C-alpha cells in the first residue's frame, strides 16, 4: 500500500435522499461546534451502561459484552487446562491408577469441548467484538442486543456443560462424538445429549456474533474506510465470520440429528434401517475443518497488527494477505474428508482431498512469507507481543508442515488418531492461535485496562510458555509414531512409552505454570501497571486514536479515514466527521464498498430482554434433552421475550 491513495474528502459529502410522506423528523442537539467537555457529557449520558445490577445485565456496549466474554473464556481456558493436567498426571507413567476410564473419558471430552467451543471460538470472537467496532471507527457493534444475547447463551451453555461434569454426567464420547458410540444404543444416559445441546448453545451464540460482525464491517465503517483501507485484523474477522455462518449450521444439524436419533428414535445414523454412521462424520467435519480456520484466521489478523506495529511499517503485501484470507476461507470447506482417510473411502476420492488439503498450504504459506518480508527491513522493536509472534511462527510452521504430512492419504493411515495427530493439532491450535492470542493480550490489554503489563514478567511468561509447550507437545509426534493411539487412559509398560510420557507431563506442567504467571501479570498490570496512554505502541489503526480504556461512545467524533494506517498518515490532526446527534445513540451507516456515509442510524438502547430471551432459549435447550415437547412449550416464553426485545419503547432510538 502506498500513501498516495488518500481519499479526497470531497467524495465524502453525503447525498441527501428524498423521503416519503412521514411525520417531520424529530431532531435533537448535534455535535457540530460543541466543545470537547460538553460533547463528552452528552455522549457519556447517551451511551453509558446504567449503574446497578439491572443496568449491568442490560448493557449492550460491545466493550462490556466483550470483556465478559474474554473473562468467561479465560475461566474456561483454565478449566480446560486443569482437565489436561489431570490427564497428563494419569499418563505420566504406565498403568497408573489415578483416574479410571470413566472419568478419563469425560476429562478428555470436556477438555476438547471446553477448548474448542467454550474457549477458542468465543475468545477469538470476543476479541473481535471488542476490537472490530473500534478499528472500523464506529460507536457500537451492529445489533448490540443480539450481541448481548449471544453472551448470555454462551455462558449458560458453558455452565450447563460444566454442571453436568460436576454431576458425573459429562459427555464421554470425545469432542467429535462419533456415532454409534454417542448414539442411542451405546451412549446411555444423558451424557451424549449434553454434548449435543451444549453445541447448540455455543453455536447459536457464535452465529449471532458472526452476523453482527459481518454487518459491522460491511455497514458501519468510518467514512472513507473503503475496502482497501480495512485493517487486516478486521478482514480476518470478516472472513472468519463468513466461515462461521457457513460452517456452524453443519454441526447444529449434526447434533440435532443425533438428539433426534436418541430421543425420538429416528434412524438417521442407524445402518439397519437405512441410515449411515459415516454421514455423521461427513456432517461433523464439514463443520470441523473450517472450525480450525475459525480459530486460526483471527490469529493471523492479530499477528499482522502486532508485526506492523513493531516492524514500524505497514505489513508487506496487504492485498496478498487479504486474498489469502479469503482463499483460506473458501478452501477450508473443501478438505473435511482428510479427517476420514481411515474410514475406507474410495482411494481416488481420498486422493482428491489430499490435493485440496495441500492446496490450502499455498495461501497459508503466502501469509508467512509476507510477514517474514515485513520483518526483514531491519531489527524490529522486540517487545513481548512480538516475542509471541516469533513463537507463533516457530510452532505454527511445524504444525503446518505436519499438516501437510497428515494430508497425505497413505501417511495419514499411520498417524491418524495417534499422538502424532494430537501433537499436530496442538501445534496448529496453540501455536497458531493461542500464541498470537497471548501476544494480542500483551498488545491490546493496555487498551482495555488503560495500563501496561510488565515487560519483564512478559518475557518470563513467553519463555516458560514456549519451552513448556514444545517440551510437552514435540515428543508426542514421536510417541504417536511409536504406536500410541490417542484417547487411551493407560498403556502397558512393555511398550516403552513411560519415560517420554513422563517428560511430556513435565513439559505440560511448565506450560500450565506459564499461565499462572500470565494471570498474575494480567491482574498486576490491570491494577498497578504504568498508564498506557492512547497509543502505547505508536501503532497505526483507529483503536489507538481513542483513550485507553475507550469511553462508552468509543470516539467523541467519528474519524474520517484517509489511509489504511490512519494514525500514521494523519499525525498532526485526525480528520473527523460532525453532524451526529448527541442525545440519541446515533452512528454512521456507510456504503459497503467505498464506505461513503449514507445514513445516521440509531443503535439499540440497553435492554434486559436479551437476558430474558437467553434464559428462555437456554431453558428450552436444557429441557429438550429430556423431551421433544420442550420445543413446543419453550416456544411461548421465547416468543414473549423476543416481543419484549423488539417492541419499541418510545426512546428516540426507536422512533426514527
Amino acid at each position, binding site marked *: 500500500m502506498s500513501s498516495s491513495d488518500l481519499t479526497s474528502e470531497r467524495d465524502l459529502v453525503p447525498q441527501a435522499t428524498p423521503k416519503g410522506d412521514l411525520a417531520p423528523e424529530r431532531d435533537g442537539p448535534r455535535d457540530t461546534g460543541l466543545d470537547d467537555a460538553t460533547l463528552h457529557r452528552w455522549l457519556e449520558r447517551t451511551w453509558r451502561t446504567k449503574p446497578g445490577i439491572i443496568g449491568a445485565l442490560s448493557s449492550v456496549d460491545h466493550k462490556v459484552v466483550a470483556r465478559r466474554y474474554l473473562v468467561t473464556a479465560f475461566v474456561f481456558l483454565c478449566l480446560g487446562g486443569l482437565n489436561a493436567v489431570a490427564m497428563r498426571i494419569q499418563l505420566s507413567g504406565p498403568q497408573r491408577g489415578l483416574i479410571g476410564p470413566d472419568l478419563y473419558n469425560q476429562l478428555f471430552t470436556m477438555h476438547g469441548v471446553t477448548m474448542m467451543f467454550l474457549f477458542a471460538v468465543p475468545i477469538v470472537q470476543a476479541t473481535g467484538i471488542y476490537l472490530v467496532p473500534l478499528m472500523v471507527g464506529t460507536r457500537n457493534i451492529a445489533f448490540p442486543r443480539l450481541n448481548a444475547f449471544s453472551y448470555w447463551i454462551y455462558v449458560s451453555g458453558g455452565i450447563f456443560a460444566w454442571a453436568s461434569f460436576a454431576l458425573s454426567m459429562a459427555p464421554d464420547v470425545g469432542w467429535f462424538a462419533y456415532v454409534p458410540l454417542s448414539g442411542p444404543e451405546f451412549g446411555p444416559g444423558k451424557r451424549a445429549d449434553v454434548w449435543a445441546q451444549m453445541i447448540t448453545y455455543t453455536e447459536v451464540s457464535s452465529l449471532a456474533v458472526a452476523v453482527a460482525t459481518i454487518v459491522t464491517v460491511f455497514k458501519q465503517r468510518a467514512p472513507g474506510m473503503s475496502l482497501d483501507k480495512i485493517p487486516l485484523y478486521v478482514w480476518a474477522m470478516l472472513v472468519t465470520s463468513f466461515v462461521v455462518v457457513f460452517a456452524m449450521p453443519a454441526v447444529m*444439524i449434526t447434533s440435532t440429528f443425533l438428539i433426534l436419533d436418541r430421543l425420538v428414535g429416528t434412524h438417521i445414523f442407524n445402518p439397519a434401517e437405512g441410515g449411515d454412521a459415516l454421514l455423521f462424520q461427513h456432517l461433523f467435519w464439514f463443520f470441523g475443518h473450517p472450525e480450525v480456520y475459525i480459530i486460526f484466521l483471527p490469529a493471523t489478523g492479530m499477528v499482522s497488527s502486532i508485526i506492523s506495529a513493531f516492524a514500524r511499517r505497514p505489513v508487506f503485501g496487504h492485498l496478498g494477505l487479504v486474498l489469502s484470507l479469503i482463499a483460506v476461507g473458501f478452501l477450508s470447506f473443501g478438505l473435511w474428508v482428510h479427517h476420514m482417510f481411515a474410514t475406507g473411502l474410495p482411494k481416488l476420492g481420498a486422493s482428491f482431498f489430499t490435493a485440496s488439503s495441500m492446496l490450502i498450504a499455498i495461501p497459508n504459506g503466502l501469509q508467512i512469507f509476507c510477514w517474514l518480508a515485513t520483518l526483514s527491513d531491519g531489527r524490529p522493536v522486540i517487545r513481548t507481543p512480538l516475542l509471541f509472534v516469533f513463537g507463533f511462527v516457530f510452532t505454527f510452521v511445524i504444525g503446518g508442515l505436519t499438516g501437510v504430512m497428515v494430508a497425505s492419504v497413505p501417511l495419514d493411515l499411520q498417524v491418524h488418531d495417534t499422538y502424532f495427530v494430537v501433537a499436530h493439532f496442538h501445534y496448529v491450535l496453540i501455536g497458531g492461535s493461542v500464541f498470537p492470542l497471548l501476544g494480542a493480550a500483551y498488545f491490546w490489554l493496555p487498551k482495555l485496562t488503560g495500563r501496561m503489563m510488565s515487560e519483564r514478567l512478559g518475557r518470563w511468561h513467553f519463555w516458560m510458555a514456549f519451552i513448556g509447550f514444545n517440551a510437552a507437545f514435540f515428543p508426542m509426534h514421536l510417541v504417536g509414531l511409536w504406536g500410541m493411539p490417542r484417547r487411551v487412559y493407560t498403556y502397558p509398560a512393555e511398550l516403552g512409552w513411560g519415560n517420554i510420557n513422563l517428560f511430556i507431563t513435565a513439559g505440560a506442567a511448565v506450560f500450565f505454570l506459564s499461565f499462572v504467571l500470565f494471570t498474575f501479570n494480567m491482574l498486576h498490570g490491570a491494577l498497578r501497571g504504568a498508564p498506557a496512554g492512547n497509543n502505547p505502541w505508536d501503532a497505526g489503526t483507529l483503536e489507538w486514536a481513542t483513550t485507553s480504556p475507550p469511553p462508552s461512545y468509543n470516539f467523541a467524533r467519528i474519524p*474520517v479515514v484517509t489511509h489504511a494506517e490512519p494514525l500514521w498518515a494523519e499525525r498532526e490532526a485526525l480528520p473527523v466527521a460532525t453532524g451526529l446527534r448527541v442525545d440519541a445513540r*446515533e452512528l454512521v451507516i456507510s456504503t459497503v464498498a467505498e464506505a461513503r456515509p449514507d445514513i445516521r442510524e440509531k443503535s439499540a438502547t440497553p435492554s434486559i430482554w436479551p437476558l430474558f430471551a437467553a434464559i428462555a432459549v437456554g431453558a428450552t435447550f436444557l429441557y429438550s434433552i429430556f423431551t421433544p415437547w420442550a420445543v413446543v412449550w419453550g416456544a411461548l416464553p421465547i416468543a414473549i421475550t423476543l416481543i419484549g426485545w423488539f417492541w419499541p419503547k418510545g426512546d428516540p432510538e426507536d422512533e426514527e
Partner: protein
Amino acid sequence: MKQRPAADLSALPTYGIGPRSPTWWGTLGFMALEGTGFALAAGAYLYLALSWPQWPLGAPRPNHWPGTIVTLLLIVSLVPNHMLNRYAEQCAIMPVRIGLVVMSLLGIAPLVVRWFEFPALNIYWDTNAYGSMLWVLLGLHTTHLITDVGDTIVLTVLMFTRHGNSGRRFGDVGDNVFYWDFVVASWIPIYLLIYWTPRLG
C-alpha cells in the same frame, strides 16, 4: 489526539430501506446460515438416498397433494408480498397495514395445510431412515414457517400502534417481505425432494 472536522453528516437521512440498512444485511446473514442448514439437511437426504440402492426402502410414496397446495399457496402469496414491499418503500401506512393483514392470513393458510402434510408422508419418523429424513426436512421448514408467520403477526400488530408510522418500521416491513421470499424459495427444493424424488426411482 488533535482532530479536524473533515465532513459534515448532519444532512444524512436517519433510516434506509433494503441494502442500505444494516437490518437487511443481518436478515441476509440469517438467511445464509439457515439456507446452509437446509442445504445440509437436503444433502444428508441425498447422501442416504444414494448410499442405498433400494431407496426409499420400500416405503409407500407420499401423497403429494397437501404439499402441492402449500406450494401453490406460497407462490400465490408472493404477489401481495411484493405489493406490500412497494407500499413500504413509499411509506404508505394504510396500504401497508392492509398488506400485512393479508400476509398474516396467507402465512397461516399454508400452516393449516401443513398440518395435513405430515400424515400425507405415509410414513413415520421412526419407521426407517427415509421416514426420518422426510420428517426432519418437513419439520425444519415448518419451524421456519411458524417463526416467520409469528414475526409477521407481531409486526402487523405493531404497525397498528402509534409506533407504526416511522421510517424504521417501514424498513422492518421491507425486511419481512424479503424474509418471506426466502421462506418460499427454500420450500421449493424441499418440496421437490420430499414428494418427487421418491417418484423418480
